[in-house]
């Protein structure tokens, strides 16, 4: 009896420590929210208010006036990147996992190496190419560039996932006369729903968060994503930090939604990218 009691006590003790650690870790996120609600007059107050007691939504109103087009562009680019990434990576994953192509290992190796190229290198190469093709400051151009952040990872995820589909199932389809294309479309894809979700989440998140490609390939264009919206805000009006932080809060919404609705896919993706199985 007393032993169970002691055990519950240590569990609660650990929970308390856990809550404190999480609070410390998430303090910057809280601070972003707090500043986004602070009045202009309190912005330079020293020491700053720890709670938004005189909260105001002015910052958010400014954002809705200024930043909606940026958010819209980011949404379009994010969805475009998802579509392009899945369309390219899912068939490749199927081939690498189930069709044992000659040279498949070389391709996997190239994909691994491709993930290690720093973004600034890719950005400079894309800049030179897009300048000649007239694709600078265009939405499709940025979608293609952003997809390079996700495609190698996506192929690896699809390969790992599709390797787990039982071979007998595909054999049975073949016996019934289904070609590789039909097998892929009617059996492999429906069974790979989880992989599609994981890949889509990461592709969207990475393209939504991309700053390097945005600032090099679409800076000054008619369609700039939200990361540039924030960047211009910081550059132009150094005083209105409630509006800057309100934009930051809105730009964080996809991450928040993903965390609440799809946390297990995120953890799965992080681990699969680093350690196979």
């Amino acid at each position, binding site marked *: 009896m007393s032993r169970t009691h002691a055990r519950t006590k240590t569990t609660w003790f650990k929970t308390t420590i856990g809550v404190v650690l999480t609070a410390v870790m998430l303090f910057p996120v809280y601070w972003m929210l707090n500043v986004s609600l602070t009045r202009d007059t309190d912005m330079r107050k020293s020491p700053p208010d720890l709670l938004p007691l005189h909260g105001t939504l002015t910052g958010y109103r400014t954002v809705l006036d200024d930043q909606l087009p940026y958010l819209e562009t980011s949404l379009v680019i994010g969805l475009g990147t998802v579509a392009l990434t899945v369309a390219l990576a899912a068939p490749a994953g199927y081939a690498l996992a189930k069709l044992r192509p*000659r040279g498949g290992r070389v391709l996997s190796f190239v994909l691994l190496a491709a993930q290690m190229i720093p973004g600034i*290198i890719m950005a400079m190469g894309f800049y030179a190419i897009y300048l000649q093709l007239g694709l600078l400051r265009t939405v499709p151009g940025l979608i293609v560039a952003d997809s390079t952040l996700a495609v190698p990872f996506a192929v690896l995820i699809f390969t790992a996932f599709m390797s787990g589909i039982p071979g007998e199932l595909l054999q049975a389809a073949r016996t019934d006369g289904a070609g590789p294309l039909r097998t892929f479309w009617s059996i492999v894809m429906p069974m790979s729903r989880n992989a599609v979700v994981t890949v889509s989440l990461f592709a969207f998140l990475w393209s939504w968060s991309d700053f390097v490609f945005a600032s090099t390939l679409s800076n000054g264009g008619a369609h700039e994503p939200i990361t540039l919206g924030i960047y211009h805000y910081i550059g132009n009006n150094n005083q209105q930090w409630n509006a800057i932080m309100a934009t930051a809060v809105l730009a964080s919404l996809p991450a928040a939604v993903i965390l609440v609705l799809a946390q297990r896919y995120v953890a799965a993706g992080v681990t699969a990218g680093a350690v196979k199985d």
Partner: protein
Amino acid sequence: MTPMNQTTHPPDLPRPTPVPAEPAPTPPPGAKKRRRPASTQWAAWAFLAPVTVYLVLFYAYPLYRNLDLSLRNYTVRSFVQGNAPFTGLKNYRTVLDDPTFAPALLHTAVFTFVCLAFQYAIGLALAVFFNQHFRLAATLRALFLVPWLLPLIVSASTWSWMLNSDSGIVNAALHAVGVDPVNWLTSPSWSLTSVIIANIWIGVPFNLVVLYSGLQSIPSGLYEAAALDGANAWQRFWRITFPLLRPVSAITLLLGLIYTLKVLDIIWIMTKGGPADASTTFATWSYQLGFGNMLPAFGPGAAVGNLLVVAALVFGLVYIRVQRRQEALS
């Protein structure tokens, strides 16, 4: 190599070229199960074709253009017209002789290794902590992912404001305990520390998640046996957890190394590499040269970038080797 040899070869060896569509000769009986029919090969490469074309167009070609940039003397005009004179390694010499080179190298090394050390140590401590069973553990662990999921510009601008000299919460907190305010982002002696702090904060979740999944695969029976033998928590960590976690740790650190080496957004948004190059790394220097000035210096910028690629690929190859060896062992 004759076609005969090709079909009898172990099929999983890397092969540089796709097979020609020749009719496969009859394989020896033992190899029958591993035979790959030509039609499947065609289908396989048909499925791989889009991604292969994509890799050539959008990885290989930009990389080639970048190499080309670094070997020519580009000006704004010749950049548009595309007739810049070939100058060999001159851009690389310019970069090596630049007074920014030595500090950039030092900052890249310090930034990478200090970030890695702290991210790993904090991530491991948290992973061990969350590996115990207590209420809310799963929820709290999920919340720890937040810094990693946020767009980098969001994290960077939040930290910028927190570290603001006059109105930042950090200096206010220091003032409350009687410490003089620090010019986190505007003093040359502190700006590198500031971006390191922000980057550690962003990198901890990744280390936590991967190391936690590594801890999960350590059989709990080992701990029970050690506890029966009278090992305390500290001994159990150093004798069981740490040695058994070594493969996962190696992968985590190598991936972290590759990612940290190329960090650009955080530093650029918080300090632009300044003040006076005090937080310049190779990544920000390359960006600065190519896009940060009114007159872009694409040649030297690409040269700096290519040095970074070489470094990343060296560690990348080490990573792939380590991973292959671990797969072979398991």
